[in-house]
């Protein structure tokens, strides 16, 4: 058995096979399947945007699990009447019915019991799926072998997809696109400000019902492709991935649709080429890769971009602190015009040194042999910063009733982000307080707290 892990029982596909599959030349059936899954991915991506916005991702999970009892019940009923129970549309109608019932039940549970959303969804999900499993065991004993296909709806079986099914998926995608297009403004409003929408008279329950109804439709149609357990993945992951790339709804919809389509496309091709790689799982994993890439690399909201932005901010703040620190040293000690390098480096971190060189490069600091001093530009910037810092301190003392010894920390952080118009507001506010008049008199207000002691605690560059 242990050898089973290491022996590789299949051969990787050749490049020619791969290329053929990619360009849809691997045979009619393969084309049909790829088309079907691509359309399903598009529809799911499109719908998923709104589901994400309305925060109904896990309701969709419950919906897809609740398909099972209806599916099996439809089979049993058909069987009971003497049919083989294999009519796809009949089975899917049953699935849709029980799925919609689940939506209703979730609302009922929230309304009439002490359970909140999450518990209601969990209960409906598990009990309905359990009912489905129970019914499946009944089907197993009642029919004789006809029920084998039912399990395929749980895990999916793309190989059985017909051209007709792909057409249905196309139709559903189009339908979903039209409905969502018409309702997008209302859905958007409800997603972002439900109370306002209610005030405006928008029928929120109806809109939600439309959204969930479309979800049921797409889920039921997708049961064959990816199975009901993984439908949730297609509905949530492309939309979540798209979220990283934009703040605008219209663009997010298109990106999400694109991600879904790509997942369906690449997933089904990979699954067809590699034996015993079930299509549903591969499609989901492809979308997972897209999600990971978006998570890492998206500009602005991606993780790497955020780290970079973080770091840049720290650089700016540290540079500001160095300038102001030096300025305050010169204030404290009137003879001081330059600062010895070794004095600086004794307490400086690596970041501080980098920032010192950055300041030099920006022309705010000048290096003379073994000491450095502020240039005019540097002095101007330092004065501006110190002024911001001290105005803020005055503001905290006179308007927030803080003690003079408690204002330094806050001002340390705020001084970097005070824009000129905010400074103007500060000046106006301080002008109204008599005790603050002295602060406004000079170019750089005096410090409300002693500077010297602080310096010895914290080193030269952190004021």
């Amino acid at each position, binding site marked *: 058995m*242990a050898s*089973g*892990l290491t022996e590789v*029982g299949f051969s990787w596909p050749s490049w020619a096979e791969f290329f053929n599959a990619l360009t849809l030349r691997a045979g009619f059936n393969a084309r049909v399947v790829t088309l079907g899954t691509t359309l399903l991915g598009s529809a799911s991506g499109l719908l998923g945007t709104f589901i*994400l916005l309305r*925060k*109904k*991702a*896990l309701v*969709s*999970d419950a919906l897809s699990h609740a398909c099972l009892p209806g599916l099996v019940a439809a089979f049993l009923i058909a069987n009971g009447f003497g049919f083989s129970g294999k009519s796809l549309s009949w089975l899917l109608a049953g699935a849709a019915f029980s799925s919609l019932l689940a939506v209703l039940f979730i609302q009922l*549970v929230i309304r*009439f*019991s*002490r*359970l909140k959303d*999450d*518990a209601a*969804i*969990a*209960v409906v*999900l*598990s*009990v309905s*799926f*359990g*009912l*489905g*499993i*129970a019914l*499946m*065991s*009944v089907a197993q*004993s009642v029919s004789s072998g006809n029920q084998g296909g039912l399990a395929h709806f*749980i*895990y999916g079986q793309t190989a059985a997809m017909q051209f007709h099914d792909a057409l249905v998926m196309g139709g559903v995608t189009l339908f979903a696109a039209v409905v969502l297009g018409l309702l997008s403004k209302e859905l958007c409003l409800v997603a972002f400000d439900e109370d306002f929408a209610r005030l405006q008279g928008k029928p929120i329950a109806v809109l939600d019902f439309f959204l969930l109804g479309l979800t049921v439709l797409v889920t039921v149609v997708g049961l064959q492709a990816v199975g009901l*357990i*993984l439908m*949730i*993945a297609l509905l*949530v*992951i492309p*939309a*979540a991935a798209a979220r*990283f790339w934009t703040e605008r709804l219209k663009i997010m919809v298109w990106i999400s649709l694109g991600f879904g389509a790509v997942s369906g496309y690449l997933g089904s091709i990979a699954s067809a080429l590699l*034996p*015993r*790689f*079930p299509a*549903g*799982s*591969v499609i*989901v*994993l492809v979308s*997972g890769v897209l*999600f990971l890439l978006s*998570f890492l690399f998206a500009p602005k*909201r991606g*993780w790497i971009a*955020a780290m970079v932005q973080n770091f840049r901010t720290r650089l700016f703040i540290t540079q500001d602190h160095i300038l102001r620190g030096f300025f305050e040293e010169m204030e404290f000690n009137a003879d001081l015009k330059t600062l010895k390098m070794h004095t600086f480096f004794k307490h400086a971190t690596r970041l501080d040194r980098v920032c010192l060189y950055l300041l030099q490069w920006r022309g705010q600091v000048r290096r003379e042999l073994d000491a450095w001093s502020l240039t005019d530009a540097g002095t101007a910037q330092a004065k501006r910063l110190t002024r911001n810092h001290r105005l803020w301190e005055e503001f905290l003392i006179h308007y927030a009733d803080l003690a003079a010894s408690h204002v330094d920390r806050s001002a340390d952080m705020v001084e970097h982000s005070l824009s000129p118009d905010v400074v103007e507001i500060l000046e106006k506010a301080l002008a109204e307080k008599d005790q603050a008049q002295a602060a406004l008199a000079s170019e750089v207000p005096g410090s409300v707290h002693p500077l010297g002691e602080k310096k010895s605690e914290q080193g030269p560059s952190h004021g």
Partner: protein
Amino acid sequence: MDETLYRLVSIDLWPLVAGVLVAVTCGLIGNFLLLRKMSLMGDAISHSVVPGIVAAFLIANSRTSWIIFVGAAVAGVLTTILVETVRRLGRLEAGAAMGVVFSILFALGILMMEQAAARHVDLDADCLLHGQIETLIWFPPNDLGQWLKPATLSMVPNEVYILLFTLVAVALFIKIFFKELTLSSFDAALCDALGFSAKRIHYLLMTMVALCVVASFFSVGSILVIAMLICPAACARHFTDRLRTQILLSLVFAVGIAVGGYALGAFLPQQLGYAHSISISGSMSVMAGLFLGGSVLVAPQYGWVAKALAQNRFELRVAEDDLYGFLYRLEEVQKTDMATQVILDGIGGGRVARKALQVAMGKGWVVRSGKFLALTDEGRKRAKTMVRTHRLWERFLNRELGLPTDHLHIPAERLEHFTTQKVAHALVPQGSDSLEDPHGKPIPDQD
């Protein structure tokens, strides 16, 4: 041993015991999931332990090895970490973050299972889904005295021992960390401030959930663990507001669900004439749903029936008080010849009004004088209180809140039914003899 008893014990005993153990273990820890509004984390974990289990199975090559638990614990912690990361750094809402993480992990698990099947390794996808509790067969020795011998006990299915062990672990965990769990569930900030890391407790709790899920996997399968995690606690929630009581009640319900579910699946079909039984995990989760439905309906105070009855009683009381007030106001303007039906319509009409009249007459506070209704002395006392309260409110709303005179009646109409004596007393302005309401009507004295 008797034939039927032997069959019962060999086929039914251990599945029943296993079912009860699953229900009790999951139900126990599910109390805290319900409390923290993390029911769906149970769902997420039960999906995402699958790759961990498959990996462990491939390494250990047996279904009941301790390596499976390690795989599960790792998967559980990993899920929690990933969900937190996606939620925080990706700035997605909690549900979407869970959906992303668990569906990717589950897809991975399915893929691994298919690949394992390709290499002729025996792990059945269906087993993962709904367990194989029915296979816990055990052939007991005929002589009862033999039951406690080690040889016999070693033949008891492994799954039962695993469940027992997990139950003890969970019970100990809850006993030891009860204070921290409770505090972090109700007030995470205070918990942190007091020095107990709420975050660590969260991770610990999720690890325990993962262990429960895995122990239960091979009995009831993945999806149905969720039912066992939530339903017992959810049922208990409707009967009490106190956490300790809720936990104890959830254990009772858990046993009931397991036993009832087993009976439903194993014995009911035969009673109904079907030769085969129903999947036990399926029937247990259906029973869980039925129990929950029952609790929602019949729980005293919080159940639907109780609330409907309380609502009826309330409406009746309000209608009755309205009747007294109405008749008093008729007396004030000396109109004693209003038809009964008109009066009933005046206090809202319908079945409630008729019942209110019945009650009032039964108490002897309202009598028929000829064709018309009249207040007795007792009734008039109550009426005066109601009208007094009503007009005091109108006065208050007009003078203190500045409401115009045509906006006073409706709020006063509502408030009069909720005013205690203390509040009514506070509404009376200092040092005034005969007062008038803003419409000019006199405010009756207090009797």
